[in-house]
């Protein structure tokens, strides 16, 4: 039986703009992936717990409120606390170029800014999965 790539698409923080997250969710679905969408205003705790219960390969977070420097690393911290090291974590939204090195050093694999073609994100997920089974 074929294995499906499962992705949790999450909106951490307090902004209410999920257009981008929904576009990504739809693109990933059309690429044959199973997307679990959590909706708006998720805490890092909710995101990590949902990601673990759903046993996803990738957590994709979108944020436009500017709180990424706090919330993204917090997600990485929680994953580490729970000894989860095989979930690929990526981010998107309005994130200044200058914040990207910090986020990457915190463990976010890649940041996709506005206007990134969805194919780039899809290809990145496929190429960077941390597990095969």
């Amino acid at each position, binding site marked *: 039986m*074929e*294995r499906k790539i499962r992705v949790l698409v999450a909106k951490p923080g307090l902004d209410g703009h999920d257009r981008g997250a929904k576009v990504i969710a739809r693109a990933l679905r059309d690429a*044959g992936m199973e997307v679990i*969408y959590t909706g708006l205003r998720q805490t890092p705790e909710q995101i990590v717990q949902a990601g673990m219960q*759903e*046993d996803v390969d990738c957590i994709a977070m979108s944020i436009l409120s500017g709180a990424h420097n706090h919330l993204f690393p917090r997600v990485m911290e929680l994953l580490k606390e729970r000894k*989860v090291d095989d979930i690929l974590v990526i981010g998107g939204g309005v994130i200044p170029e200058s914040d990207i090195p910090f986020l990457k050093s915190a463990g976010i694999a890649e940041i996709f800014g506005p206007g990134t073609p969805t194919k780039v994100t899809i290809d990145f997920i496929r190429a960077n999965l941390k597990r095969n089974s």
Partner: protein
Amino acid sequence: MSDDIVAGIRSGDVRAIARTISRIDNGDPGIVGIVKALHVHTGEAHVIGITGPPGSGKSTLVDKLVRSYRRDGFTVAVVAVDPSSPFTGGAILGDRIRMQAHATDEGVFIRSLATRGHLGGVSRATIDTVRVLDAAGYRRIIIETVGVGQSEVDIVRLADTIVLVSVPGLGDDIQAIKAGVMEIGDVFVVNKSDRDGADRVVREIKGMLETALVNGTTPPFALAGHGVAKAAAGYSDDPHGLPPVIKTIAETGEGVDSVKKAIEGHRAGLDQAGLLRARRLANVEHELRSVVTDRLTALLERDDIRSRTKMLSAEVVDRARDPHDAADDLMAAMG
């Protein structure tokens, strides 16, 4: 290794549970041993199937039921099944949106499954997923599916108690739910009952249930369960013990406690009448059939059987054989 996984599941380890469900979902043959080992640790949970047309508010109802069960001190697992796209094989599983309030509650485990288009396989994957969650100690397990076709009906058929949700205003949703689905309900919910037409939907459902009673098409275990359950906890106020029809507004939580009471009353009724075993026997019989059907389907895909099928088909077209004879030949080849 496999002992570790079983122990992990039994101790409620989220990762062990989640990974095992994925392997089941992926059809990993290595998982069979684990499912087998878990079987003796199952049977404690009350399995509740909830189905209804898209947009009828099932996820919201489930969210509120989970909240209500948590207040009673029960651990709860939810298996939310959504369709895969037949075109890309992908899926957007959005049932969690309504349930994320429970994400950080350790007493709640929510898992979304996609139907993945394999014949019959979904219900099997769901059964084994429920088994894992049962063995992990969750005492109420809710399976949520969109009630649109036979395969979804098959999924909820593995439950101890089946809840059918409908809403006013869809016009023909009753039509959709009627074809082979209506008969299996133990509890009927008319959600969004603040909308026009709710009472009419209630009347229609009651009418159908009464007709089924007169025609004798109500499954005996269900009816007997209802008859007995009637006495228990106000499960049903119908003089014939027919399933209750409950109006809810899941969004505000109105009526949700009545639904929970009815579900619990149904289960208590089955227990008191010694009918739970009959119900589970019927469910397992159904499951065994589907396991065997799956295996036979897999057998048909084996190379030698495939080429034999091709050869026999040519003979049938050339009138060297008739189809029934060819089928006999094929069955013999399959052993």
